[in-house]
């Protein structure tokens, strides 16, 4: 084989070199622009919303018809706590309500009695007034007769004493009538006690209903590791339900390519469970914030500023949330690796 000289300089060779170098640079610029205009990420993940299933009341777990990794429908029974203590509480509250209702009846009767008493006292006052009027008229009549000595002075004196008596009786009867009127009172306190008992009963019934937990949405039961018999505290999480009504892909996209993304853009998502099946989705939103080490520090403390002289700064990435169209459920697992292509890819043609 002929030895090739490395020092050959021919015009044709230089021209070829120039064309190749310029072509490479031009293509490089074009590709980098395309890459910025059509962002993609291979570090995304399949995402879904979860519900940490717990009851607001505690107790012993007596029924658990679901098992781990089972698909459930909205409204399905997930588990049931021992309702007995809560049934007893309901009975107690019902008894308290009955007691309060009886007390209201009692108070009504007392009120009727007091009203009658007040009427009697009012009549007494009227009678005292009539007596007083009679005594006054008697004194008026006897006064001239006693002045002319037609009647004994004693008789006139007795009439004046009777008038005085009648005045005192009238005053007393008025006071009694007022007191009786005040003593009537009302049913407010017993009605309020009845309402309080009713509220307690509603609360007890609510607590009883909370012993049955149903699925709030379609989903998959995960991280369930206990059986019937377990005792749960109020609000203690028994398992996690992965909501199956909406699936998302979350992809971290560099901030310099974010302007190319707007909510509603088509996206091609590959779940790496099967890298050949494209899933179609649409950009729902772009994360508004991420925590960065530069801004780390205690709240109310002084800012933490490291001494450094960095000349190269790696671009920050923000999570872009993509809502997936309905797809094969076998490809959708929370946390699966996803490759995301925004505004291009097979699903977006």
């Amino acid at each position, binding site marked *: *084989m*002929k030895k*090739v*000289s*490395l020092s*050959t*300089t*021919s015009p*044709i*060779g*230089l021209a*070829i*070199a120039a064309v*190749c*170098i310029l*072509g*490479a640079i031009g*293509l*490089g610029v074009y*590709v980098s622009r*395309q890459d910025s*205009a*059509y962002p*993609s990420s*291979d570090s995304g993940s399949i995402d879904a919303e979860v519900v940490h299933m717990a009851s607001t009341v505690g107790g012993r777990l007596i029924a658990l018809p679901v098992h781990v990794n089972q698909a459930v429908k909205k409204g399905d029974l997930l588990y049931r706590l021992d309702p007995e203590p809560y049934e007893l509480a309901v009975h107690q509250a019902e008894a308290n309500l009955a007691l309060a209702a009886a007390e209201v009846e009692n108070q009504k009767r007392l009120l009727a009695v007091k009203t009658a008493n007040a009427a009697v006292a009012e009549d007494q006052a009227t009678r005292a007034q009539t007596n007083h009027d009679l005594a006054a008229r008697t004194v008026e009549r006897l006064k001239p007769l006693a002045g002319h000595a037609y009647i004994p002075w004693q008789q006139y004196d007795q009439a004046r004493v009777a008038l005085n008596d009648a005045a005192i009786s009238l005053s007393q009867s008025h006071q009694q009538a007022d007191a009786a009127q005040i003593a009537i009172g009302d049913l407010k306190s017993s009605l309020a006690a009845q309402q309080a008992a009713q509220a307690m009963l509603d609360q007890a019934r609510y607590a009883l209903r909370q012993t049955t937990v149903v699925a709030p949405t379609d989903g998959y039961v995960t991280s369930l590791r206990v059986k019937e018999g377990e005792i749960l505290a109020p609000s203690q999480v028994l398992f996690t339900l992965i909501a199956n009504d909406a699936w998302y892909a979350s992809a971290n996209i560099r901030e310099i390519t974010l302007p190319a993304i707007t909510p509603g853009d088509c996206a091609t998502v*590959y779940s*790496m469970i099967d*890298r*050949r099946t*494209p899933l179609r989705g649409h950009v729902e939103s772009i994360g508004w914030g991420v925590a960065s080490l530069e801004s780390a520090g205690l709240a109310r403390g002084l800012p933490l500023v490291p001494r450094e002289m960095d000349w190269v700064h790696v671009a920050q990435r923000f999570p872009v949330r993509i809502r997936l169209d309905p797809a094969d459920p076998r490809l959708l697992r929370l946390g699966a*690796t996803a*490759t995301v*292509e925004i*505004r*291009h890819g*097979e699903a977006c043609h």
Partner: protein
Amino acid sequence: MLRLSIRPFGISSALLLGGCTVQGAPSFSLVGAYFPDWMLCGMIGIAAAVSLRVVFVLTGVDAILSLRLFTYLSLGVITALLTWLLWFGP
């Protein structure tokens, strides 16, 4: 005649490769790890540059080239970028 028929083959190899678009994610699984598409394109570019060098030396095209390092580097880069554009590009 042989030289003329072989020369365009090197450039069109990338086009041929792009033509048989492989469906799927731009991420490749290898022993449990995912490798990005650009890494594969880079490998193809390196392989193209090396094979072009071999082909050109064998056919004698190499003799008329100058600035060979830059020429082969550029050819490798062009192959890699074309592969990416045709295979994974938008």
